[in-house]
Structure formats: C-alpha cells, structure tokens
C-alpha cells in the first residue's frame, strides 16, 4: 500500500545585511546590486557580505546589469523555463525565470529583467528575464 502525503512548511528567510541591501534595491529602485571584492576584484551577484572566491570580507556594493547574457537554460514542464544569466558587470550567474518563448532562448542571447509592478523585497520582484528585441546570440 502506497500512501500519498504532503505538507507545506511556511518560514521566513532572514536575508542578512548584504541580502537585505540587494532586495531593498530591487524593491525601491529596480536596481540589481552586486558586491565587488576589493581583494580579488570579483563582482558577486546577488550582493554578499563576503567573497566566496578569496574569502575577503571587504566588499563594496555596485550596480550590475540590468541587462545580461544567457549562459544556459532548462525547462521544467508545468513550471516554466529557467536560465543562468550573467549580468553586465557581474561575475558568475544569476538563476532566474525566463519569460520569452523557447525558440528565442539560445545561449549568448541578450536579456533584460522585467520588474513586477508591486515589489516586496523578494527575488520575485524581478518577474523574469526576456530577450532584448533584435538580439542575436
């Protein structure tokens, strides 16, 4: 006998100093905040309190994007398409939802964020990324 079960677990994620700055910038100014490591020069996105590459804790917030380049994507049937996006001026990639139809989504294509009208300080204040018209990979 197989029993189906389920539960939902509500919780509040504490974003921390750097995470809070990142989310507040999205919410208040539609800016995407990275953090530049003064030790190794890497720009981490979203902004973090320390550098994951060199371990340095001396970072300065700076804007990245808002446009970027699609690195890779995947489709989750019933849930949409997700991509790794390297934002201009940032290192690494941001995982987010892709809003443009599949044929336009090839690695290297240029993307821009679409912000939600009502923003609450949440990564979903960006609804997703869409292909910049006229962009070719």
């Amino acid at each position, binding site marked *: *006998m*197989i*029993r*189906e*079960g*389920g*539960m*939902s*677990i*509500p*919780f*509040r*994620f*504490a*974003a*921390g*100093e750097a*995470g*809070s*700055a990142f*989310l*507040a910038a999205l919410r208040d100014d539609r800016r995407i905040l990275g953090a530049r490591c003064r030790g190794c020069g890497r720009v981490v996105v979203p902004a973090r309190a320390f550098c994951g590459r060199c371990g340095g804790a001396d970072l300065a917030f700076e804007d990245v994007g808002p446009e970027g380049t699609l690195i890779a994507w995947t489709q989750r049937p019933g849930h949409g398409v997700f991509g790794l996006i390297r934002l201009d001026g940032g290192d690494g990639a941001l995982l987010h939802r892709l809003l443009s139809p599949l044929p336009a989504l090839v690695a290297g294509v240029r993307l821009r964020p679409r912000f939600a009208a009502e923003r609450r*300080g*949440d*990564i979903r204040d960006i609804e997703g990324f869409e292909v910049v018209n006229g962009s070719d990979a």
Partner: protein
Amino acid sequence: MSEHLTVPIEMALTWRYASGSAMERFAAGLRERRIAALRCDGCGRRYLPPRPLCGNCRLPLAEWVPVADEGALEAWTVMHLPILDGRTGEPREAPYGMGLIRLDGADTTVNHYLDERDPERLAIGMRVRAVWRGDLRGAMDDILHFEVLR
C-alpha cells in the same frame, strides 16, 4: 545598512509512503473500527502500531491480537506551539493536549491528541477512549483524538 529583510517562503513537500504489509493490514482494520496489534512469540510483547520485527527478540511477528479502542494515559503534555500536524500538513490550533496511550490489549503506546487541554484535568493513568471519524478511510487519522473518560 539598517533595514533587515525577511522573505516569506512556503516550502511544499509531498511524498509517497510505502506502508509495508503489517501497516497495510492494520490500516484496513481501522476502516472497520478494528484495532489489532502484532504479538511476539518470543517475549509476548504486543506491538501497536504493528511492526514486522520484535525489537527485543528480533523475531518476525505474525500473530495478530485484538486491541480495544480504550486505554490508559501513560504520559501527557499540553502543546502551546501550533506546530505542523503531520496528518494534515497544517498547523494545529494551540493549545491542545497530547498523550501516550496504552490501549487495552497492547504493550506499547501510541502518540495521539486528547480532547482535554487543561493540565489540572489531566493525570497519568486516566482512562481514555478513541473518537472515530465519521467517514473511515483506513488511515491512522481515522481516530481523530482520544476523549478522557470521567
């Protein structure tokens, strides 16, 4: 930086639980308001809920014995934190009573809700009786809670 944000997140977990043959037979009995335990041939211990092996003797268990839907309270507590109810996946309204109940005919206890939440009116050894759901489904929560008999 002064503002500290928290992000509300709801994590949905779903699963498929393979109950095994002993639990399957036990659950089928519940649908007819029958409670049965498995008795160990070696030490005589009667397990409720049933399990395939005796924890004392490591012998496979096969002998089913009837158990009443009444028993004695072995331990109790009053919960004030509305933690998730594993049976529904929703928080249960606090405060509520919980007990370890040894049903007549079993040697182990089951953990279940009580209809009493006043600590002044709960005591170890109290007699309790199962309150059954109207539409029995063949699941552990066919017993809604236990009422204290006074």
